[in-house]
């Protein structure tokens, strides 16, 4: 049962980039699966390897400078994506799997009419005539909620507003009814008021098409309602994973706790500073030996800087990679036990 319903399986994905400064290990052993119709959220701050993971799944990493390390495997419906070439690759991209990028203004060709950008996708993956494809492009624009689509198809991307542009990107992505959609920070460049609309649009199209979605974001608040499962990434690794409610309401890893605290809240005391995680993520040219979050972790212990923690399993397939649980016999609520004191410390800052 489990086996048949996995649409995507990423196993021990390791991606490095060669730069003049050295080899940047952008993704360091990421494994996860996506089931049919499921929504996965990949959460983490900038530079943690979320986008590289997304591009790897689309097989969009340029090699060189990028490099898939020995043992990396991505299976789409049992097929080896990293081995795709030629015709199979171009069918897979856009047909089986589509991606929506963060900045639609940069991601749309500025000198090509919006309609044409949708049409070329349809033509590539179907036997429709040009005329039929054009009609379908209009329908797609209507479907993503763009008013007057007949007129809009003839316009250029710069004539659209930010939210409308992202709707166009979504129309392109869903043009060929992909089984997997990767949304790489689809709302980051948008106004807060538009964000929910775009996410709801993705969600409803996903339901219509029965697609799976990988939603990449740095904002945990955004994904809480939409995602079935949450994967928290830090420094190229997944540090915590679990059902959405579990991760959101009972975060285990101190990094997840910190991310949740960094989400602005309406019920927050006015005048209180918004929480921010001190320090910067580690240098991925020379990744630390121990836990990568150790240098920023308020609960850092001596062992954290020396050795990598094992994965600790909690109930309901909830996992975290942290020494706090690996050492204790009763791991329940570890960050919360000390959360009060941590907040007091924060108040002076």
């Amino acid at each position, binding site marked *: 049962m489990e086996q048949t319903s996995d649409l995507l399986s990423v196993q021990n994905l390791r991606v490095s980039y060669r730069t003049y400064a050295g080899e940047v290990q952008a993704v360091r052993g990421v494994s996860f699966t996506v089931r049919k119709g499921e929504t996965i959220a990949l959460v983490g701050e900038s530079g943690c390897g979320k986008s590289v993971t997304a*591009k790897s799944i*689309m097989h*969009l990493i340029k090699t060189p400078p990028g490099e898939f390390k020995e043992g990396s495997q991505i299976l789409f419906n049992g097929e080896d994506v990293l081995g795709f070439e030629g015709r199979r*690759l*171009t*069918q*897979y*991209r*856009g*047909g089986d799997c*589509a*991606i929506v*990028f963060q*900045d639609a203004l*940069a*991601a*749309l*060709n*500025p*000198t*090509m009419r919006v309609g044409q950008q949708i049409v*070329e*996708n349809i033509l*590539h*993956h179907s036997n429709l005539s040009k005329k039929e494809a054009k009609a379908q492009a209009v329908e797609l624009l209507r479907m993503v909620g763009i008013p007057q689509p007949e007129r809009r198809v003839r316009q*250029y991307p*710069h*004539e659209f507003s930010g939210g409308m542009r992202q709707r166009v*990107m979504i129309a*392109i992505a869903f043009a060929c009814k992909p089984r997997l959609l990767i949304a790489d920070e689809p709302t980051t460049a948008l106004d807060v008021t538009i964000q929910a609309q775009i996410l709801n649009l993705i969600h409803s199209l996903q339901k219509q098409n029965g697609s799976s979605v990988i939603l990449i974001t740095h904002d945990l608040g955004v994904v809480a309602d939409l995602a079935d499962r949450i994967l928290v990434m830090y420094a190229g690794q997944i540090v915590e994973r679990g059902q959405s409610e579990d991760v959101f309401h009972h975060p285990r890893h101190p990094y997840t706790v910190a991310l949740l605290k960094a989400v602005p809240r309406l019920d927050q005391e006015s005048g209180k500073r918004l929480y921010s995680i001190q320090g910067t993520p580690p240098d991925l040219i020379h990744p630390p030996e121990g836990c990568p979050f150790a240098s920023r972790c308020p609960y850092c212990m001596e062992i954290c800087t020396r050795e990598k923690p094992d994965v600790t399993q909690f109930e309901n397939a909830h996992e975290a990679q942290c020494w706090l649980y690996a050492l204790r016999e009763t791991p329940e609520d570890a960050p919360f036990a000390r959360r009060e004191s941590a907040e007091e410390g924060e108040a002076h800052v």
Partner: protein
Amino acid sequence: MSFLRYALKKLAVMLLTLYLIATATFFLLAATPGDALSARVERLPETVTQRLYEKYGLNKPIMERYITTMKGLLHGDFGESIIYQGETVQSIIRQKGPVSARLGLQQMLLGVTIGLLLGLLAAVKKGSLWDYLVVVFSILLISVPNLVFALLLQQVFAGQLRLFPVIGWPKENIWLGGWEYTVLPTLAGCFGYIASYARLLKASMLDVMNQEYILTAESKGLTHREVILHHVLRNAFIPIVTYLPMSLAMCITGSFFIESVFSIPGLGLYYVNAVAAQDVTIVMGETVIISAIYIFVIFITDILYSIVDPRIRIKGGKR
């Protein structure tokens, strides 16, 4: 309405520029020691000298000459050549212009075509042997003056192989005839275009290939070929299009070196000779006319820009 205002504003700036160029040219010429007649004066009797000076007004104070010149400029009268009697700038351009224009156009057509193809090759095969060959080749072509190429071509193809005439230019059928005369000068002058257009297109294509919309195009499953043809090229051509009119203006105004090495009776050679002989009326006239062409070309470039790049549309224009 708004476009009209834009055009008028542009026109005013263009005229002001032209006026400043004319003024600068006039005073620079006036500041050079001696004048067009001083070389001949020694051999002539005093009265003839005086008559000549009066005829051309060279004995008048500088401000008065300036005003006379500027008044003439207003109705396109640049005055008679001091060296070649009876010739005006217009008559000289009519005679020599087509020669320079044909040579320049042939050079540009050949050079730009080859240059763009090489640039495309270098960009598509980036990092390969082809890429390095194109880079080395274009650096070589840009660093060696075309005068050197002209002499080498003459030596090999005209001197040793005797395939083409050493010097000269077709006298009849000025646009199409006597092609054998034009081969070597065309080759000698096209290298600069090859080098600059190859580099320009390569740089521009690589820049476009790094844009995120190319990633989007790839993510739709388009083949590499389709991505290059439909997405990269059009965007990469924006800088090329703005560069082309400038090249065109440059090519029709003639090249001194090529024209003198091959003894081609073109504008470039004539212009430089006129400067050397201090033939002020001709120098003024040519400078102003050539500047006018350049300024006009820049205006055309602005308009072209808005055609290739839909993001740049004149405000208030048709949407």
